[in-house]
């Protein structure tokens, strides 16, 4: 397959996949919370564009609704909520010194390779675009997990959590032209509730350990001391 021979939709999806993967990497290396949230919103925007494009190219009107929901939720509402929390807690100037940034980046790269490794044998007789898109979304999911492992700020964890959702959503759009509407609405509802709950949790964590550093949540252990 050569990229010149593909239609515009596929080219655009590939490009968006690459850019979404890039935003995941950007988040991974980002120590400043506000920029983290900004990059997250950017990822949401790319996702919304991908959805709208799929709706237009594949003539699936229900995807327009998904695109609008994504735009509202992932680009505006959730980043806005997190931003507000950051300002409210007065941590917008904090910079998190990331430990082992290089190792984390290399780990991220190997996760991408891993995604291809996992999906390649499975999807060998499907269009290569599908493999690329699915591998990208799987790596976005895995990179989101890595983000949660490598960052200590609770807010970064939430952004990681939400970017995992982004990865899943992208997989759903590309591989299956979106889930059935009822499922999609359910997922959107869950995401929204999760975002609100996270907001409540920030306050609780803040009032209980006087910080949002989740490394300080270490009272409970596998084995009681």
């Amino acid at each position: 397959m050569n990229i010149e021979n593909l239609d515009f939709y596929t080219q655009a999806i590939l490009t968006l996949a690459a850019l979404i993967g890039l935003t995941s990497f950007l988040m991974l290396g980002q120590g400043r919370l506000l920029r983290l949230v900004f990059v997250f919103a950017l990822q949401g925007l790319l996702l919304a564009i991908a959805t709208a494009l799929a709706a237009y190219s594949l003539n699936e009107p229900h995807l327009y609704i998904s695109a609008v929901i994504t735009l509202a939720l992932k680009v505006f509402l959730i980043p806005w909520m997190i931003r507000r929390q950051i300002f409210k807690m007065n941590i917008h100037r904090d910079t998190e010194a990331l430990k082992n940034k290089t190792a984390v980046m290399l780990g991220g790269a190997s996760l991408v390779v891993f995604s291809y490794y996992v999906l390649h044998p499975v999807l060998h007789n499907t269009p290569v675009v599908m493999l690329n898109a699915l591998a990208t979304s799987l790596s976005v999911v895995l990179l989101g997990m890595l983000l949660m492992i490598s960052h200590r700020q609770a807010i970064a964890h939430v952004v990681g959590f939400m970017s995992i959702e982004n990865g899943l959503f992208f997989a759903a759009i590309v591989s299956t032209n979106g889930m059935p509407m009822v499922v999609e609405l359910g997922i959107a509802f869950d995401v929204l509730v999760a975002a609100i709950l996270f907001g409540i949790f920030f306050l609780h964590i803040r009032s209980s350990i006087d910080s949002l550093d989740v490394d300080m949540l270490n009272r409970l252990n596998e084995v009681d001391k």
Partner: protein
Amino acid sequence: MIAVYLLLLLSVTGIFYFALLGHRPQVGRINTWFNTASFLITVWLAINIFLNGNIISANQLFIVDSFNIYLIVLTAFVGLTTSIFSDAYMAHEKEIGRLTDKRLKVYYAMYQGFMLAMYLVLVSNNMGMMWVAMEAATLATVMLVSLYRTPESIEAAWKYFILCGVGIAQAMFGTILLYYAAIQIGDVENALLWSVLYESAEHLNPEIMEIAFVFMLVGYGTKIGLVPLHNWLPDAHSEGPTPMSAVLSGLLLNDALYAVVRNKMLVDGATQSHIAGFFMMGFGLLSFLVAAIFLNRQKDIKRLFSYSSIEHMGLMTFSFGLGTPLSTFAALLHMMVHSLTKSAIFVTVGHASQIAGTQRIEKIRGLIKTQPTVGWGLLIGTLAIAGFPPFGVFTSEFLVLLATMQSYPWLTPLLLLGIGLAGAGLFRNIQPMVYGKQSDGQLPVQANLWPVMIHLALVLWLGLAIPTFLADWFSQATVLISGSAPL
């Protein structure tokens, strides 16, 4: 079908009712009534199924068949008995000032929300809806885990939220792959409906289904509490209010396992091999053994029993993984007796920790003198869960062992070792708590031990003789899952 809609509607009403009026006195009683009504509806539904066979709703969103009906009844039943217990428990917590009116509102509303999510997981025919409901169950319970607002409970809730949220995302990826495999064989409209997929399982791409199953097992496995994704489970159980621990252990874990088994049925149909079973056996056995070892090192009574939950869920996963009719039958039975016994134990544990004012094992001593009913309840419950005859857990564990000996005899010693380790760990801790010298400041509390008695009596009954209609159900479900009848 009306029964299913009524059931869901009732829980929705419950959420709104308690969210608005949850601060009134007698609210615990009303919660019990709600759950009684749900239970009656499920019994009606069960009779319906018993007489008329499986039903699928007109829009194909809901399915009730021989596999999930008994879980639905079980869910409603445990929900009911736990609500009876939680009435007294929450009244006590409010009295000693651990909870405010506002949090009681949250508690009762989320209790109904959790029940709704559980019913929805069980009756969903759409695999995507099932996932959504599972996530909703997490969201509903996460506020309950942090109900006390202690630093520990907030930490536990945070861990629960993050770990389960991330875990379940993997299940979503699995579901997407499933959907992808399904639309390749056509019929985009119904491509996520379990009933449709089950019919055409052999056409699904086996390689994609294998990968999808791995993701789903990891995802839902987090919720089951499979090692190494179990970290949230002891924390959430130990820091949340005790009624929550009872329903988490008794219902949530079961439902997650239910979701895995539903998917396994599709995967088995697609791959025509035993690969999904091997995965389940591996994870199950690992969880079983690891939990049995860790159980010996716990100092908190609720953590002790939550490790026991992991152990039993591991055993069930293993048993479903074996995939023979006998082992499937055993796993179904074990699901039932375990949730009955474990919720009974958590109820007594809740009372015991209220008596002693702490959950530390070394501070709870001589329950049998302070409040004999609680002491006896704890002792009998522990006997039952450790797998002593004549309780139902013995029967099911025996059947699992038997099935293992038939298929993989060399795994039997490992199972026996795990059961022995877990039993030892439980008794080492429970014996002084029940019989030891009373510690100071232990006061009897107002306790309603009827739920415990009923649960344990049922488990005993199941151990002595499984009633014919139940055995029939189990056999039907076994046929559905494993393809042929047991025995």
